[in-house]
């Protein structure tokens, strides 16, 4: 419950709209709009010689550091990188003089003003005028090893429907916490798959 509340306070358009509208009792549904194909950990490329990596993670809200959300999601991010099996060891701190570093930045790009306005409108009609708004999550992953750097980007979104609004086509409602977790896993795994495709983890990459 505390996690869910902190998420609502820390993240997003969906949060702003939900908070405002739900004060008057409206029903809220979250939908994770994930990049295709949706990956599981065992579908990721196999790295022949996995190396240890230091993961540096930060969560941004509209380009600004969001320390509270970073703290809430750090464990999930570390878990997603670990479950990829693309590294021999995953650490949140630098532990050698020449580390391999994976920087992961997830930016929640949201129109807060629009969210609050729509949520307020939905709240005033007690949910009869439903609203649907989108949080775009843009993940930038940069891998530095031996002085060389490669970058990749993954994108996903969380749609929040408040009041009487139909579900987005092809998407099922999920718990907001689960939606965030799904988005985090998928944008990271897609970014790692891209990096592997560019040869970032190969032997020839020093």
């Amino acid at each position, binding site marked *: 419950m505390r996690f869910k509340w902190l998420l609502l*306070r*820390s993240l997003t358009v969906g949060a702003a709209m939900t908070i405002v509208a739900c004060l008057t009792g409206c029903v809220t549904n979250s939908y994770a709009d994930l990049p295709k194909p949706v990956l599981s950990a065992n579908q990721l490329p196999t790295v022949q010689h996995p190396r240890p990596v230091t993961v*540096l*993670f930060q969560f941004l809200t509209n380009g600004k*550091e969001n320390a509270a959300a970073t703290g809430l999601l750090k464990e999930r991010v570390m878990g997603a990188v670990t479950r990829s099996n693309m590294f021999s060891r995953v650490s949140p701190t630098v*532990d050698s003089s020449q*580390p391999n570093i994976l920087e992961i930045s997830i930016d929640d790009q949201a129109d*807060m003003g629009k969210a609050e306005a729509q949520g307020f409108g939905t709240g*005033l009609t*007690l949910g009869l005028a439903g609203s649907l708004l989108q949080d775009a999550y843009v993940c930038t992953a940069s891998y530095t090893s031996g002085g060389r750097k490669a970058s990749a980007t993954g994108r996903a979104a969380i749609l929040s429907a408040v009041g009487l609004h139909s579900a987005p086509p092809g998407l099922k409602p999920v718990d907001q916490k689960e939606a965030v977790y799904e988005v985090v896993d998928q944008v990271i795994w897609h970014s790692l798959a891209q990096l592997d495709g560019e040869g970032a983890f190969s032997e020839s990459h020093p």
Partner: protein
Amino acid sequence: MNTSTSTRVRGLAIALIALLAAGCADAPAPKYQPAVGNTEVLIKQPTKLAVGSFTAAPGVENRQLFMRGANQMKGGGADGTFSGYLHDAVVSELQTANRYDPHSDLLLSGVLTRNAISAGASKGSATVGAQFTLSRDGRVCFSKTLVAHSEWPSSFIAAIAIPAVIQLPGHLSEAAR
């Protein structure tokens, strides 16, 4: 919906929004998270540092900051102070970059010189200042006062105020180069 009912619903909504936006409770400072940019700078430094005491200058609020109404933010350091929070933040940054050594002869200490937060209805802001001192074997070899300021659009996402503190170790790294 008649005019009277509509007015009451709107009034209730506005009152609840105002209540929520105000926070309605004391808020501890969020747990400090090392910034990626700071780690990038620190891992390029050749030496490791020990971290000494961090205190507050006379007259600088060190335990709690009051915002609108009766709301307050409490110092989030291990000792319940904001200077302790800054101490813990510096240690966290150095540990993440593997540049922390409690036995190093280079000792970083600090004094909180400014500490203010403002949370208006449409905009919030925070200002943090500190004097950092680096000493070797008891002799001061570097000292600088740095100030960081951050603004955010509304109290819905007050958690992003923390970049004011995040900027300080970054400014310190740049100043030390």
